[in-house]
C-alpha cells in the first residue's frame, strides 16, 4: 500500500490514496460532494460543475481534480452552496422539466439536488427551448426536454456497452445528444438492457412501459435527501 495523502475538507482532516480525486476521497470519508455528471464506474467528465469546490482558494471540479498533500478544500460553505444553487437553477431553466408528471420524479437526481438545496423555483427566467422527443425505438424513449447534457449515456454506451450509440452534436446552447443513426434511435443497435439507459440521472432516457411502478412515498429520494447514503455510510459510497 502506498503512502496516504492528507487533506482538509471543511476543516475536517481526512486521508486519501494517491490517484484519487477529491470527490472519491471525500466519499470514502463519508463526505458528500453533490454531483450530477459523475457516476462511479464511468470516466470522470467534469461537465455539470455541481461538484465545484474551492481548493486552496481556487475553484476546481472535485470529480476531476486529484488530491494532493496538504490540500485545503471548501465544500459545504455558503459561497460554494450559492454557486451550486446557481448551477442547479441553470439546468432547470435551460430545459423543460415538468416534475409533476415526469415518471423519474422521486428518483431524479436533479430534482433531488434541488430539494437538498432548498430550491422550490429557479431564480432565473425559463428559456422554454424547443427540443426533440425520439420515441422511434420499441423499448426506449429519448426526451431531450429533460436532458441535462451530463454525458453519462455517452460514456456508458461507449465504455461499458461498447456501442457508442450516443454522442454530442452542435455547440453552445444548441448542443444536444445525438444517436448513431441518420434518423433516430430505431436505426441503432440500442437495447433496453443497455447500461446507458440506467445511468441517466433525469428523465431523458427512459425504458418504455415501466414508469410509475413505485408509489409516491417509497421512491428513492422520498425519505432521505440525495447523498444521505454517503453521509450515513461513512465510506465506500
Amino acid at each position: 500500500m502506498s503512502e496516504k495523502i492528507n487533506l482538509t475538507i471543511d476543516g475536517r482532516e481526512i486521508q486519501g490514496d494517491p490517484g484519487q480525486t477529491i470527490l472519491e476521497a471525500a466519499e470514502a470519508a463519508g463526505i458528500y460532494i453533490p454531483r450530477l455528471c459523475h457516476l462511479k464506474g464511468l470516466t470522470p467528465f467534469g461537465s455539470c460543475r455541481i461538484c465545484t469546490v474551492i481548493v486552496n482558494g481556487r475553484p476546481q471540479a472535485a470529480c476531476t481534480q486529484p488530491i494532493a498533500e496538504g490540500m485545503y478544500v471548501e465544500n459545504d460553505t455558503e459561497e460554494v452552496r450559492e454557486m451550486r444553487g446557481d448551477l442547479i437553477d441553470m439546468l432547470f431553466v435551460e430545459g423543460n422539466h415538468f416534475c409533476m408528471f415526469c415518471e423519474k420524479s422521486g428518483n431524479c437526481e436533479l430534482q433531488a439536488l434541488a430539494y437538498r438545496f432548498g430550491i422550490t423555483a429557479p431564480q432565473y427566467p425559463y428559456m422554454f427551448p424547443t427540443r426533440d422527443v425520439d420515441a422511434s425505438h420499441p423499448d426506449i424513449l429519448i426526451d431531450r426536454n429533460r436532458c441535462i447534457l451530463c454525458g453519462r449515456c455517452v460514456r456508458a454506451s461507449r465504455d461499458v456497452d461498447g456501442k457508442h450509440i450516443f454522442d454530442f452534436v452542435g455547440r453552445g446552447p444548441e448542443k444536444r445528444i445525438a444517436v448513431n443513426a441518420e434518423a433516430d434511435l430505431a436505426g441503432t443497435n440500442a437495447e433496453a438492457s443497455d447500461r446507458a439507459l440506467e445511468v441517466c440521472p433525469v428523465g431523458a432516457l427512459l425504458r418504455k412501459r415501466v414508469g410509475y411502478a413505485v408509489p409516491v412515498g417509497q421512491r428513492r429520494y422520498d425519505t432521505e435527501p440525495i447523498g444521505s447514503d454517503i453521509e450515513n455510510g461513512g465510506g465506500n459510497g
Partner: protein
Amino acid sequence: MSERQTADVRGICRTYHRDPGRLIDIVRDVQAQSGCVAGATIDAIARELGVHRVEVESTVSFYAFLSQEPQGRVVIRLCDDIIDEMNGSAGVAEAFREELGIDFGETTPDGKITLEWTPCIGMCDQAPAALVNDVVFPNLSREVARTIVRGLREHLMPQRLIQHYGDGNNAHDLVQSAVSNNIRQQGPVVFAPMPAGEAIRLALAMNPVEVIRQVKTSRLRGRGGAGFPTGMKWEFTRNAAGGQRYLLCNADEGEPGTFKDRVILTERSDLLFEGMTIAGYAIGADTGILYLRAEYAYLRRFLEHMLQERRRQELLGKGICGHEGFDFDIRIQMGAGAYVCGEETALINSCEGFRGDPRNRPPFPAQEGYRGCPTSVNNVETLCCAARILQKGASWFAQLGSSGSTGTKLLSVSGDCMRPGIYEVPFGIKIAEVLDLCGAPEAHAVQIGGPSGQMLGQDGFGRTICYDDVATGGAFMIFGRERDVVYIAAKFLDFFVEESCGYCTPCRVGNVLLKDSLDRILGGRGEPRDLDLLQRLGKTVKACSRCGLGQTSPNPVLTTLEHFRGEYEARLQMPTNGRRASFDIQAALTEATRITSRSRGER
C-alpha cells in the same frame, strides 16, 4: 449518394491515410467538393475511417465553417464585430441582402451563393470586412458589396474580384490579397530582421537544456493572454515521460479585435518557423503543427511555400543545419471556425479530428497532449520572441519591457482612432501612451484583451500594459464618447454564447442568462435587481466554468459594471405599483394567443 461521390469520399479519406485524426482535413475537403457534409456522406466517411457515424457528425456539427445543410458554391461571411459595426457593416449587410435577394443564413435559390455572419475574421484595422470563400474583402462599403455580388453572379470566382493587392507579402504571388498590414510601429523583437537559420544555428550550438535555460533567463511569458512562463512549459514537456513529443503553434487567433498573428504570418513567418524549430529542438520534438484558423486560409499556400523554402535550405527536415540527429518538420493544420480552439487543449482535440471541446486538466498537455504525447502549445508571437532570444541573448531581451514583463508586445489597435494597426511596444507602456501613438484623443473607453479582457474608462488610462497590471493577448479596441458600453458588452456576450462549446453548465447556460439580462436592460426593462443578478451570475460563471472561455466570458459585463456603472443605472426602471418592468405581459401571452388563434382582448 452516387457511386462517383462515394469514390470521391474514399479518395479524400485515402489522401489522409484513412486516419480518423485527420477528420477535420477530410471533412473540409469533402465540403469543398460537395458543399456540405451530411447524410450518406457522413456514413461513407465513418465507414472509410472505421469510426461511428455519430462521431463524425459530432465533429462536423461543431465547426462554423462546416455545414450539414447544402451551401452555395460561394459563401459570403460578413464579420459581425462591434468594430465592423462602428465602420458601417449594417449598410454593407443591407447591400448584400438586397443584391442577393436573401437574408443572412440563406442561400440563393439557384444554390450558388450563401450569406452568413461570422465572428471576428482578424481585420478590425480595415473593417468592415468579409470573407468570400477564402478571399478577404476589407474596407467594404455598400457599393463594393454590390460590385462583389454582381461579379460573383458572373463567374463565382471571388479571387478575380480583387483589384488591388495590399502591401508586403499580401501582394506575393501565392497570397494576392487586398489585406493591408498596417504596421504602425516596428520594435526590436518581432519586426527586426532575422537572417534565416541564424537563431537555429546559435541554438544548435547549445544543448536543449541550455536553450531552455536561455528562455527561462529571459523571463519570456506566453503572448496569447494567459502569460505562462515559456521556458517552464518547455521544461515540463521535455521532462515528461514518453518518447514522442510535439510542438504545436497556436495560430487560431480568434479573440475579437486581435490581428497581430495575421501580420506575423504574412511578414514574419520565417521568424515564426525559426522559433518553432528551436522549440522543437528544446523539447525534443520532431514534429511541429501550425494550427491555422480557417479565416486565414488565404495565407496557407504562401506558408506552405515558405516551409518548402526552409526545407530546401536544410532549416527543416533531417539533420537540420548539419546537426546529426536533429530532425524536425512542420505541417499546417487548418481550423474550421471555432474560437474555443484557441484554448490549448481544445486546439489539441481539433488537431486530432475531434470537436473542439477543451479537455479536463490534469493531465496537462506537457504530460499528455497531442495523441497522448507530451506537447507544448505556444502562441505565434511567443515563438517569434523565443527565436529572437536565441539570436540576441536572454539578457538583451530581459532589459526590454518592465521587470515582471520582459520584451515587447504586439498590440492590435482598432476602433475610434486615426491610425489603427499593429504596434510593437515595450511592456510597461501606459494605455494613455498607446492612445497618443494611434491618435485617439477622444477615447472614452478601451477594451483591452478583447471581449475576454477588460473594459477600462478614462480613470484607467494611466494603467500599464503588462502581466502584473493590464494583461492582454494584444487586442486594443478604442471607443469614443458616442459609443454605448452596455451595448458593446451585450455584443461581446453574444459572441461568447455563439462560441461556447457547451460542455459545461455555467458557460453554456450562464452566458445566455447574462445576455438576456443585458438585453432587458438595453430594452428599458431592467430593474435595480438586474445589476445584482449580473454580478452574481457573472461570479458563478467565472468561478465554475471549465476553461478559459467561461472563466472570462462575464468580463465584458463585470468590467463595464465596475467602470461604467452609471451607464447601466441610467437605463434602469424602478418597479411601480408592484409591477416588475422586466415582465412583458404581451410577450408572455404571444405563444398562448397563437396556439388558441385568438387575438388579444378577445374572450
